[in-house]
Protein backbone atom coordinates (compact mmCIF):
# COMPACT_ATOMS: atom_id res chain seq x y z
CA UNK A 1 0.00 0.00 0.00
CA UNK A 2 2.75 2.43 1.02
CA UNK A 3 4.82 1.33 -2.00
CA UNK A 4 1.89 2.10 -4.32
CA UNK A 5 1.41 5.54 -2.78
CA UNK A 6 5.11 6.31 -3.24
CA UNK A 7 4.91 5.24 -6.87
CA UNK A 8 1.82 7.35 -7.55
CA UNK A 9 3.37 10.37 -5.81
CA UNK A 10 6.60 9.97 -7.83
CA UNK A 11 4.59 9.77 -11.06
CA UNK A 12 2.44 12.77 -10.14
CA UNK A 13 5.52 14.79 -9.11
CA UNK A 14 7.28 14.07 -12.41
CA UNK A 15 4.18 15.01 -14.40
CA UNK A 16 3.88 18.25 -12.40
CA UNK A 17 7.53 19.04 -13.18
CA UNK A 18 6.95 18.45 -16.88
CA UNK A 19 3.86 20.68 -16.83
CA UNK A 20 5.95 23.47 -15.26
CA UNK A 21 8.56 23.11 -18.04
CA UNK A 22 5.76 23.15 -20.64
CA UNK A 23 4.32 26.39 -19.25
CA UNK A 24 7.75 27.98 -19.07
CA UNK A 25 8.37 27.22 -22.75
CA UNK A 26 4.88 28.17 -23.95
CA UNK A 27 5.46 31.88 -24.58
CA UNK A 28 9.17 31.97 -25.33
CA UNK A 29 10.12 34.93 -27.58
CA UNK A 30 12.01 34.25 -30.81
CA UNK A 31 14.72 36.23 -32.58
CA UNK A 32 14.83 37.34 -36.24
CA UNK A 33 17.12 35.80 -38.85
CA UNK A 34 18.30 36.43 -42.41
CA UNK A 35 19.07 34.22 -45.40
CA UNK A 36 21.94 34.89 -47.78
CA UNK A 37 22.76 33.74 -51.34
CA UNK A 38 19.27 34.20 -52.75
CA UNK A 39 19.00 34.18 -56.53
CA UNK A 40 15.97 36.41 -57.25
CA UNK A 41 15.35 34.52 -60.53
CA UNK A 42 14.45 31.33 -58.69
CA UNK A 43 12.61 32.89 -55.76
CA UNK A 44 8.96 33.85 -55.43
CA UNK A 45 7.12 36.32 -53.25
CA UNK A 46 8.18 39.20 -51.06
CA UNK A 47 11.74 39.34 -49.76
CA UNK A 48 10.39 40.84 -46.56
CA UNK A 49 8.01 37.93 -45.89
CA UNK A 50 8.14 36.71 -42.27
CA UNK A 51 8.74 33.11 -43.37
CA UNK A 52 11.39 32.00 -45.86
CA UNK A 53 11.18 28.52 -47.34
CA UNK A 54 14.07 27.02 -49.30
CA UNK A 55 13.08 23.91 -51.25
CA UNK A 56 16.01 21.68 -52.22
CA UNK A 57 14.65 19.88 -55.23
CA UNK A 58 15.61 17.62 -58.11
CA UNK A 59 13.53 17.86 -61.30
CA UNK A 60 13.82 14.09 -61.87
CA UNK A 61 12.77 13.06 -58.33
CA UNK A 62 9.15 11.75 -58.18
CA UNK A 63 8.64 12.96 -54.59
CA UNK A 64 9.71 16.47 -55.67
CA UNK A 65 7.02 16.34 -58.34
CA UNK A 66 4.45 15.31 -55.71
CA UNK A 67 5.51 18.17 -53.44
CA UNK A 68 5.40 20.65 -56.33
CA UNK A 69 2.02 19.60 -57.72
CA UNK A 70 0.26 18.69 -54.47
CA UNK A 71 1.58 21.25 -52.00
CA UNK A 72 3.69 24.04 -53.43
CA UNK A 73 1.13 25.18 -56.01
CA UNK A 74 -1.37 25.86 -53.20
CA UNK A 75 1.42 27.38 -51.12
CA UNK A 76 2.13 29.82 -53.96
CA UNK A 77 -1.52 30.85 -54.18
CA UNK A 78 -2.20 31.24 -50.45
CA UNK A 79 1.08 32.21 -48.82
CA UNK A 80 3.61 33.36 -51.43
CA UNK A 81 1.37 35.65 -53.44
CA UNK A 82 0.01 37.18 -50.23
CA UNK A 83 3.49 38.11 -48.98
CA UNK A 84 3.56 35.66 -46.09
CA UNK A 85 6.18 33.27 -47.44
CA UNK A 86 9.26 33.86 -49.59
CA UNK A 87 9.74 30.62 -51.56
CA UNK A 88 13.21 29.83 -52.90
CA UNK A 89 13.94 27.03 -55.35
CA UNK A 90 17.31 25.39 -54.68
CA UNK A 91 18.83 22.92 -57.14
CA UNK A 92 19.92 19.67 -55.57
CA UNK A 93 20.39 17.29 -58.54
CA UNK A 94 21.04 13.84 -57.13
CA UNK A 95 23.84 11.88 -58.85
CA UNK A 96 21.56 8.82 -59.13
CA UNK A 97 19.33 10.65 -61.63
CA UNK A 98 20.78 10.71 -65.16
CA UNK A 99 19.04 13.86 -66.42
CA UNK A 100 18.48 15.94 -63.29
CA UNK A 101 21.56 18.14 -63.71
CA UNK A 102 20.72 18.99 -67.32
CA UNK A 103 17.15 19.75 -66.22
CA UNK A 104 18.55 22.01 -63.50
CA UNK A 105 20.61 23.84 -66.17
CA UNK A 106 17.50 24.44 -68.29
CA UNK A 107 15.61 25.60 -65.20
CA UNK A 108 18.34 28.10 -64.33
CA UNK A 109 18.63 29.31 -67.92
CA UNK A 110 14.87 29.89 -68.05
CA UNK A 111 15.08 31.72 -64.73
CA UNK A 112 17.65 34.13 -66.16
CA UNK A 113 15.20 35.21 -68.85
CA UNK A 114 12.31 35.40 -66.36
CA UNK A 115 10.60 32.15 -67.41
CA UNK A 116 11.37 29.87 -64.48
CA UNK A 117 7.76 29.28 -63.44
CA UNK A 118 6.45 27.77 -66.71
CA UNK A 119 9.63 25.74 -67.20
CA UNK A 120 9.52 24.36 -63.64
CA UNK A 121 5.88 23.42 -64.21
CA UNK A 122 6.46 21.67 -67.53
CA UNK A 123 9.51 19.79 -66.24
CA UNK A 124 7.61 18.41 -63.26
CA UNK A 125 4.38 17.71 -65.12
CA UNK A 126 6.17 15.78 -67.88
CA UNK A 127 8.77 14.19 -65.65
CA UNK A 128 8.01 10.58 -66.68
CA UNK A 129 8.32 11.44 -70.38
CA UNK A 130 11.69 13.21 -70.42
CA UNK A 131 13.01 10.82 -67.76
CA UNK A 132 12.54 8.01 -70.29
CA UNK A 133 13.58 9.86 -73.43
CA UNK A 134 16.14 12.26 -71.95
CA UNK A 135 14.58 15.01 -74.07
CA UNK A 136 14.74 17.88 -71.59
CA UNK A 137 15.28 20.37 -74.40
CA UNK A 138 12.10 19.36 -76.22
CA UNK A 139 10.07 19.49 -73.01
CA UNK A 140 11.25 23.01 -72.20
CA UNK A 141 10.75 24.11 -75.82
CA UNK A 142 7.07 23.17 -75.58
CA UNK A 143 6.35 26.12 -73.25
CA UNK A 144 8.73 28.78 -74.55
CA UNK A 145 8.67 30.88 -77.68
CA UNK A 146 11.35 30.21 -80.32
CA UNK A 147 13.20 33.39 -79.33
CA UNK A 148 13.17 32.54 -75.63
CA UNK A 149 14.22 28.97 -76.37
CA UNK A 150 17.20 30.24 -78.37
CA UNK A 151 18.30 32.33 -75.37
CA UNK A 152 17.86 29.34 -73.04
CA UNK A 153 19.90 27.06 -75.32
CA UNK A 154 22.67 29.65 -75.52
CA UNK A 155 22.79 29.93 -71.74
CA UNK A 156 22.81 26.14 -71.30
CA UNK A 157 25.66 25.78 -73.81
CA UNK A 158 27.52 28.73 -72.28
CA UNK A 159 28.40 26.67 -69.22
CA UNK A 160 27.95 29.56 -66.81
CA UNK A 161 25.05 27.93 -64.98
CA UNK A 162 27.04 25.20 -63.24
CA UNK A 163 28.38 27.58 -60.61
CA UNK A 164 24.87 28.44 -59.41
CA UNK A 165 23.82 24.79 -59.28
CA UNK A 166 26.99 23.85 -57.40
CA UNK A 167 26.44 26.72 -54.99
CA UNK A 168 22.91 25.49 -54.20
CA UNK A 169 24.21 21.94 -53.81
CA UNK A 170 26.95 23.09 -51.43
CA UNK A 171 24.39 25.07 -49.44
CA UNK A 172 22.24 21.93 -49.19
CA UNK A 173 25.19 19.97 -47.89
CA UNK A 174 25.79 22.68 -45.30
CA UNK A 175 22.19 22.12 -44.16
CA UNK A 176 22.89 18.34 -44.12
CA UNK A 177 20.45 17.76 -46.99
CA UNK A 178 20.93 14.23 -48.32
CA UNK A 179 17.59 13.53 -49.97
CA UNK A 180 15.02 15.41 -51.99
CA UNK A 181 12.72 17.15 -51.51
CA UNK A 182 14.02 18.83 -48.37
CA UNK A 183 12.47 22.12 -47.33
CA UNK A 184 14.34 24.38 -44.95
CA UNK A 185 11.91 26.79 -43.32
CA UNK A 186 13.23 29.92 -41.63
CA UNK A 187 11.26 32.13 -39.29
CA UNK A 188 12.38 34.47 -36.52
CA UNK A 189 15.89 33.10 -36.45
CA UNK A 190 14.70 29.49 -36.30
CA UNK A 191 15.55 26.92 -38.96
CA UNK A 192 13.22 23.94 -39.43
CA UNK A 193 14.24 21.13 -41.80
CA UNK A 194 11.34 19.21 -43.36
CA UNK A 195 12.28 16.11 -45.32
CA UNK A 196 10.00 14.45 -47.84
CA UNK A 197 6.54 15.24 -49.12
CA UNK A 198 4.25 17.15 -46.77
CA UNK A 199 0.58 17.64 -47.55
CA UNK A 200 -0.67 21.18 -47.89
CA UNK A 201 -3.08 20.89 -44.91
CA UNK A 202 -0.26 20.02 -42.52
CA UNK A 203 2.18 22.57 -43.94
CA UNK A 204 -0.54 25.22 -43.76
CA UNK A 205 -1.01 24.49 -40.00
CA UNK A 206 2.72 24.80 -39.40
CA UNK A 207 3.01 28.06 -41.35
CA UNK A 208 0.04 29.53 -39.51
CA UNK A 209 1.72 28.68 -36.20
CA UNK A 210 4.91 30.40 -37.35
CA UNK A 211 3.03 33.45 -38.61
CA UNK A 212 1.01 33.78 -35.39
CA UNK A 213 4.17 33.96 -33.24
CA UNK A 214 4.50 37.27 -31.43
Amino acid at each position, binding site marked *: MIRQRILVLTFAGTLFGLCCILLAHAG*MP*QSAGAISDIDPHTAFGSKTAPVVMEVFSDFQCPACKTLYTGTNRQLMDNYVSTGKVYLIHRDFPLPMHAHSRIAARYGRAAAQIGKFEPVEQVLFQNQEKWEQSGDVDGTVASVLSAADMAKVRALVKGGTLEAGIDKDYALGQAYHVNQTPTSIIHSRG*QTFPVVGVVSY*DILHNFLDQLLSQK
Partner: protein
Amino acid sequence: MMQSSPFNLRRALILIGRFVLGGIFLYAGYAKIFLPNMNPHPPIKIALSLFAMQVDSYQMLPPWAVNFVAHTLPFAEIALGLLLLIGWQLRIWGTLTSLIILGFFAAVVRSYALGLQINCGCFANPEPLTISTVFRDGLLAALALVMTVFAFIEARKPHSWSAPEKA
Protein backbone atom coordinates in the same frame (compact mmCIF):
# COMPACT_ATOMS: atom_id res chain seq x y z
CA MET B 1 11.66 -23.70 0.58
CA MET B 2 11.52 -20.81 -1.86
CA GLN B 3 9.20 -21.28 -4.85
CA SER B 4 11.24 -19.09 -7.22
CA SER B 5 14.72 -17.66 -7.21
CA PRO B 6 14.87 -13.92 -6.35
CA PHE B 7 16.61 -13.02 -9.64
CA ASN B 8 16.61 -15.00 -12.88
CA LEU B 9 17.04 -14.40 -16.62
CA ARG B 10 13.37 -13.46 -17.10
CA ARG B 11 13.50 -10.84 -14.36
CA ALA B 12 16.81 -9.52 -15.72
CA LEU B 13 15.24 -9.09 -19.19
CA ILE B 14 12.18 -7.40 -17.70
CA LEU B 15 14.45 -4.99 -15.86
CA ILE B 16 16.55 -4.31 -18.98
CA GLY B 17 13.38 -3.82 -21.06
CA ARG B 18 11.89 -1.42 -18.52
CA PHE B 19 14.98 0.76 -18.32
CA VAL B 20 15.91 0.69 -22.02
CA LEU B 21 12.38 1.25 -23.36
CA GLY B 22 11.42 3.61 -20.53
CA GLY B 23 14.52 5.73 -21.14
CA ILE B 24 14.05 5.77 -24.90
CA PHE B 25 10.35 6.67 -24.65
CA LEU B 26 11.01 9.40 -22.11
CA TYR B 27 13.74 10.97 -24.26
CA ALA B 28 11.77 10.54 -27.53
CA GLY B 29 8.74 12.36 -26.07
CA TYR B 30 10.88 15.08 -24.49
CA ALA B 31 12.84 15.63 -27.75
CA LYS B 32 9.65 16.01 -29.80
CA ILE B 33 8.17 18.56 -27.43
CA PHE B 34 11.25 20.63 -26.56
CA LEU B 35 13.55 20.12 -29.60
CA PRO B 36 16.75 20.15 -27.50
CA ASN B 37 18.97 20.17 -30.63
CA MET B 38 17.48 23.45 -31.80
CA ASN B 39 18.81 26.74 -30.52
CA PRO B 40 16.87 28.84 -29.59
CA HIS B 41 14.12 26.35 -28.72
CA PRO B 42 10.84 27.05 -30.54
CA PRO B 43 7.54 27.19 -28.63
CA ILE B 44 5.90 23.81 -27.97
CA LYS B 45 2.99 24.32 -30.38
CA ILE B 46 5.48 24.88 -33.22
CA ALA B 47 7.53 21.86 -32.18
CA LEU B 48 4.37 19.71 -32.32
CA SER B 49 3.39 21.14 -35.73
CA LEU B 50 6.88 20.34 -36.98
CA PHE B 51 6.46 16.79 -35.69
CA ALA B 52 3.11 16.64 -37.52
CA MET B 53 5.00 17.26 -40.78
CA GLN B 54 7.34 14.36 -39.98
CA VAL B 55 4.34 12.10 -39.27
CA ASP B 56 2.72 13.29 -42.51
CA SER B 57 5.83 12.49 -44.55
CA TYR B 58 5.13 8.77 -43.90
CA GLN B 59 2.03 9.24 -46.13
CA MET B 60 -0.06 6.81 -44.08
CA LEU B 61 -2.67 8.92 -42.32
CA PRO B 62 -5.26 11.57 -43.27
CA PRO B 63 -4.52 15.12 -41.99
CA TRP B 64 -6.85 14.90 -38.95
CA ALA B 65 -5.14 11.66 -37.82
CA VAL B 66 -1.68 13.16 -38.43
CA ASN B 67 -2.56 16.08 -36.16
CA PHE B 68 -4.02 13.77 -33.52
CA VAL B 69 -0.91 11.55 -33.48
CA ALA B 70 1.47 14.51 -33.49
CA HIS B 71 -0.26 16.23 -30.59
CA THR B 72 -0.73 13.15 -28.38
CA LEU B 73 2.15 10.75 -29.10
CA PRO B 74 4.98 12.78 -27.48
CA PHE B 75 2.99 13.10 -24.22
CA ALA B 76 2.01 9.42 -24.33
CA GLU B 77 5.68 8.52 -24.81
CA ILE B 78 6.67 10.52 -21.72
CA ALA B 79 3.88 8.96 -19.63
CA LEU B 80 4.71 5.42 -20.81
CA GLY B 81 8.44 6.03 -20.27
CA LEU B 82 7.80 7.07 -16.68
CA LEU B 83 5.43 4.16 -16.05
CA LEU B 84 7.95 1.66 -17.42
CA LEU B 85 10.75 3.13 -15.30
CA ILE B 86 8.55 2.98 -12.20
CA GLY B 87 7.42 -0.53 -13.08
CA TRP B 88 3.84 -0.07 -11.89
CA GLN B 89 1.21 -2.25 -13.61
CA LEU B 90 3.89 -3.47 -16.00
CA ARG B 91 1.62 -5.92 -17.81
CA ILE B 92 -0.79 -3.16 -18.90
CA TRP B 93 1.84 -0.56 -19.88
CA GLY B 94 4.13 -3.20 -21.36
CA THR B 95 1.32 -4.36 -23.63
CA LEU B 96 0.56 -0.78 -24.68
CA THR B 97 4.26 -0.07 -25.26
CA SER B 98 4.58 -3.22 -27.38
CA LEU B 99 1.60 -2.23 -29.51
CA ILE B 100 2.99 1.29 -30.06
CA ILE B 101 6.47 0.01 -30.96
CA LEU B 102 4.97 -2.58 -33.31
CA GLY B 103 3.07 0.30 -34.95
CA PHE B 104 6.35 2.24 -35.34
CA PHE B 105 8.04 -0.86 -36.76
CA ALA B 106 5.24 -1.42 -39.29
CA ALA B 107 5.39 2.24 -40.39
CA VAL B 108 9.17 2.15 -40.78
CA VAL B 109 9.14 -1.16 -42.71
CA ARG B 110 6.42 0.14 -45.04
CA SER B 111 8.24 3.41 -45.73
CA TYR B 112 11.53 1.64 -46.32
CA ALA B 113 9.88 -0.87 -48.66
CA LEU B 114 8.22 1.96 -50.61
CA GLY B 115 11.56 3.75 -50.88
CA LEU B 116 10.28 6.94 -49.24
CA GLN B 117 13.14 9.40 -48.78
CA ILE B 118 12.12 10.73 -45.38
CA ASN B 119 13.41 11.33 -41.90
CA CYS B 120 12.56 8.84 -39.18
CA GLY B 121 11.17 11.53 -36.85
CA CYS B 122 11.91 9.21 -33.93
CA PHE B 123 13.88 11.69 -31.82
CA ALA B 124 12.98 14.96 -33.57
CA ASN B 125 16.38 15.22 -35.24
CA PRO B 126 17.20 15.00 -38.96
CA GLU B 127 17.83 11.24 -39.04
CA PRO B 128 17.22 9.62 -42.44
CA LEU B 129 15.12 6.45 -42.45
CA THR B 130 17.56 3.68 -43.41
CA ILE B 131 17.88 -0.07 -42.98
CA SER B 132 19.54 0.55 -39.60
CA THR B 133 16.35 2.34 -38.48
CA VAL B 134 14.36 -0.74 -39.49
CA PHE B 135 16.69 -3.05 -37.52
CA ARG B 136 16.71 -0.75 -34.49
CA ASP B 137 12.90 -0.60 -34.38
CA GLY B 138 12.73 -4.37 -34.89
CA LEU B 139 15.04 -4.95 -31.93
CA LEU B 140 13.04 -2.57 -29.75
CA ALA B 141 9.79 -4.31 -30.76
CA ALA B 142 11.33 -7.68 -29.86
CA LEU B 143 12.55 -6.34 -26.52
CA ALA B 144 9.10 -4.88 -25.74
CA LEU B 145 7.40 -8.19 -26.58
CA VAL B 146 9.86 -10.23 -24.51
CA MET B 147 9.50 -7.85 -21.57
CA THR B 148 5.70 -7.98 -21.72
CA VAL B 149 5.45 -11.76 -22.11
CA PHE B 150 7.90 -12.31 -19.24
CA ALA B 151 6.00 -9.81 -17.10
CA PHE B 152 2.85 -11.93 -17.57
CA ILE B 153 4.75 -15.15 -16.79
CA GLU B 154 6.38 -13.69 -13.69
CA ALA B 155 3.05 -12.36 -12.44
CA ARG B 156 1.63 -15.92 -12.43
CA LYS B 157 4.45 -17.27 -10.33
CA PRO B 158 4.28 -17.04 -6.53
CA HIS B 159 6.65 -14.50 -5.05
CA SER B 160 9.67 -15.68 -3.12
CA TRP B 161 8.21 -14.16 0.06
CA SER B 162 4.74 -15.64 -0.36
CA ALA B 163 3.59 -18.49 1.87
CA PRO B 164 4.07 -21.99 0.42
CA GLU B 165 0.94 -23.62 -0.92
CA LYS B 166 -0.64 -26.23 1.36
CA ALA B 167 -0.67 -29.77 0.09
